[in-house]
């Protein structure tokens, strides 16, 4: 075992045990890489559309490369979380819509607890990290945000997943777009593949697609979101942004986090994992595996 891995392992376990946030901006320094030491697996368990509460570790079965593992379990609501907001600032949100949008982003930031952390990515043709990692509850500086241009939603989602992989705390990505993507080189299939590898929960709020390609993209993204333990909402996206976020946050906080130290699987590289409950009638959503570098 490499010493770096031991440090990462201790850091993760320490944070999970204490439930105390790290300092904003320190994520890269203490980033958890899914080592062979400790693996973190966010899990969503639902019966129909309802979250199943009150489960314990013994209710779960987790297989790493087919080998059953001993897991510990925490509820997300007992842990600080990282949130990545990926929001559309393309030409469709100019003028009054932009002002409304800024107010909505501020409200979302205020929704979070002080131990949580938030990062704001804005996108039009390009995507930018507009805030850095900030503590929850603080007033985000959104005044300088401008709107205009094309829409690279898929690229923005892919960038969010790649840039900010699952760290020492549960993370969810909330993506919002009120228009059709018309610029991305990345496509929904790539986003899905990345999300399922990442362990991040993906929640999306989007306008209803009218075109055939748009509907097909929505179908793939919905699949990606649901398989990650998140969801995709459509409807009045601008007016309902804070409400959509709150619904997603509530849903996410009622999910679980399993951690385990892999046993009986020594090889590096990609590990397939399967998570299920012993009560098979539930729908269980979890990452499909992890990379042991």
């Amino acid at each position, binding site marked *: 075992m490499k010493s770096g891995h031991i440090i990462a392992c201790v850091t993760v376990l320490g944070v999970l045990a204490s439930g105390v946030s790290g300092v904003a901006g320190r994520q890269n320094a203490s980033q958890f890489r899914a080592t062979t030491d400790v693996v973190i697996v966010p899990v969503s368990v639902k019966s129909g559309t309802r979250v199943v509460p009150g489960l314990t570790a013994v209710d779960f079965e987790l297989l790493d490369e087919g080998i059953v593992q001993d897991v510990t379990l925490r509820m997300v609501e007992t842990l600080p979380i990282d949130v990545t907001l990926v929001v559309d600032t393309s*030409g469709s949100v100019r003028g009054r819509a932009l002002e409304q949008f800024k107010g909505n982003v501020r409200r979302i930031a205020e929704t979070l607890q002080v131990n949580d952390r938030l990062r704001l*990515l804005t996108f039009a043709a390009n995507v930018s990290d507009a805030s850095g990692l900030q503590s929850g509850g603080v007033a985000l500086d959104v005044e300088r945000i401008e709107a205009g241009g*094309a829409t690279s939603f898929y690229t923005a989602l892919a960038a969010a997943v790649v840039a900010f*992989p699952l760290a020492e705390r549960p993370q969810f990505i909330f993506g919002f777009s009120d228009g059709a993507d018309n610029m991305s080189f990345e496509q929904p299939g790539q986003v899905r593949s990345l999300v399922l590898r990442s362990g991040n929960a993906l929640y999306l709020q989007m306008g209803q697609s009218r075109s055939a390609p748009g509907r097909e993209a929505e179908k793939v993204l919905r699949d990606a979101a649901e398989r990650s333990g998140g969801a995709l909402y459509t409807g009045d996206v601008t007016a309902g942004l804070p409400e959509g976020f709150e619904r997603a946050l509530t849903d996410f906080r009622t999910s679980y986090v399993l951690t385990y130290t892999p046993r009986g699987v020594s090889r590096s590289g990609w590990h397939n994992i399967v998570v299920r409950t012993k009560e098979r009638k539930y729908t269980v959503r979890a990452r499909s595996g992890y990379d042991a570098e």
Partner: protein
Amino acid sequence: MVPFADRRLPGLVLWLVVAAMVAASASHVPAGAPQSGTAGGVRPAFHAESDAVWMAATVLDEAGRLVTDLTKDDFEVLDNGQSRDVSFFRNDAVPFSIVVMIDMSGSMLGALPLARRAVSELVTTFMPGDRANVGLFAGIPTVAPRFSANLQTILGWVSVDRIAGSCRQWAYRPLLPPEAAGKGGVTALWNAIECGIETAAVDSETPRRVVLVVSDGEDTMGLGPPGGAPQDAAAVLTKLAAQYGIMVYAIGIRGPEPSSSREQLAKLAANTGGGYAQLTNRDDLPEMFARVGEELRHQYIFGFTAGGADVSARTFEVRVRRPGLSTRARRVSVHSAPPVMVATSIPNSPVPTASEESVDAPRLGDAALGAVSFSRLDAYERGEAIEASGLSLAPMDLFAAVQGLRRMAPAWIRAGGTEAVARRTLAVATYALDLVDQNSRVDWPEPITPYDFVEWACSMVRGTPASPAERSWQLASTALLERVTVMPRAGSPIGALQPDVPISLPAKNRFTAHVRHGEERYPEEPLWGLARAIVADALPEFAETRAGQRASRIKGYENVLSRPTVFGTDGQFTSVSLVQQEARVRMALVELVFGNSEAALRLLDQAGTPDDPALRYWYGLFKGRALETAERSADAVAAYRIAFAAYPYAQAATTALGAALVTDHQSTEASALVSRMLLLRPPPSDPWFAYRTPLYRHWPDLRRELRSAIKP
């Protein structure tokens, strides 16, 4: 002032004078209507998507007299019955152009001197900016080659010589069967009006356009207008006139007895917001012409914003709040503020003759010509950076600048002397391209379009000897029009992976026609084929099957690849092999879109790694994606690194590389790369965003060449 419709005028019998309701136009050309410009002019495009509406209205009192002292508050504008706020209002003189179509059939031949007097009366009412064209008709209509404000010029067109066919360039076009040509006694009334409308439509100098037709009121050919039977004449011609916002006035001479033709004429006039009068005494014709001029002089102009949907499918109504008044109103064909610039005539030849100059010299100074002036063109010629003063213009200023350049160019070119004609012509044409470039993403005020403007400039440079500089101009204009054609005006390029753009055939055809001009001049240049292929790929023809869709998108590239690579390259902007390399790279993306990653890889291997940075970027992107599809993640990472190296941290390549690194178990590097990408301000330029308008990447170099070539 007594209006056109005054019932008290001795000898007048009025058939129909009031048409308060205006049915807005259909947005397409009726079946059978001609598709090409006439008399050397260029037919303006019709923008049905604008929601800004302009209307001209005439107001009469109960006695039929013009009412000229109303204010904005006296009017109410209804859009499909809904009241709209009037955002623009004027009741002063707004320039108009008028096409006078005079019946010279057997029954009317003796009235030629009278017609000349009538035209003279009309022209004496002209204010700065007003212009006229004259057409004569019997069996076949003819029109003068241009508009003019000069009385002598206009009167010269009211000549019996034209009936004898002595002025060959005046032939309009053979609307009628050949056997009808010799029938001096017949009257092809509907074809003549159609000819008048088409002539007015090609005049892009003035916002208000009018056709005034004088006839004995009977169509004796029995052919009807193109696309309709005689009994449908009013409906068909209304539709055509409405397409261009043209008002039709009609004056019938002789006999008060009703006839089908007269009813149709009156209906047409009412529908288009014009007027119809029947003269029992033909000597009243001059006075009637003067009254048409006065009525046009005293119209009110309104601008307002229509609610939501296509204005071409709506009904607009202008009401006067004061009791006892009625209106005749017509939607006019501009959706910018009506310009006040002076415009006299547009020469059809690139460099007009001295005699034309003396007839149609400018009547106002530079200030009336928008952003263009002699001194400005002088500065541009010297290479000064006049762009810094802002060529990106508001619609009204753009209209003025475009028309001002067209107006002024011939005189400015001549002012440089004979030796400077070719160079100065190139300067004007390059200036035109700068205007198009700076304004390529805004709505152009109807009726001008970037295509018409570039074609005007193109016709000028084609009138000069072929040269490398002119070839650069042809390539530069092609690059600009490619951008105009492919890129939606108010948005950005649509991702080439999901072509979901409404196909704009007229735009595509205009672009293709322009490319043909360049190709005719410089057939050895290989870029023309690629230009056509790119637009065909971006705006593919409809196909029901995926195989058909694929074929439609790659057909142009296959044509490029079929060109012999041994073709000479001396003096060309690019070489056949480079063009073919680009065609292969672009074709590879089409293959990827249609799931043929192996075919894509073959094409990219054949292309080889390009030297051109943008092309190398696209090459790396597409190769990476093809290799990812083939589950060769390490090779995909290597390919994406090619793109990344060409444009470091450009977002499409950086994100794609990051995603491929994740798949290749290199998440740490992926995270570092993409995190850094997200923090760069401003984001580095990304050739992916320009993928649909690739020729535009050559514009800066071509423009630099042109600016250098036009210096004295």
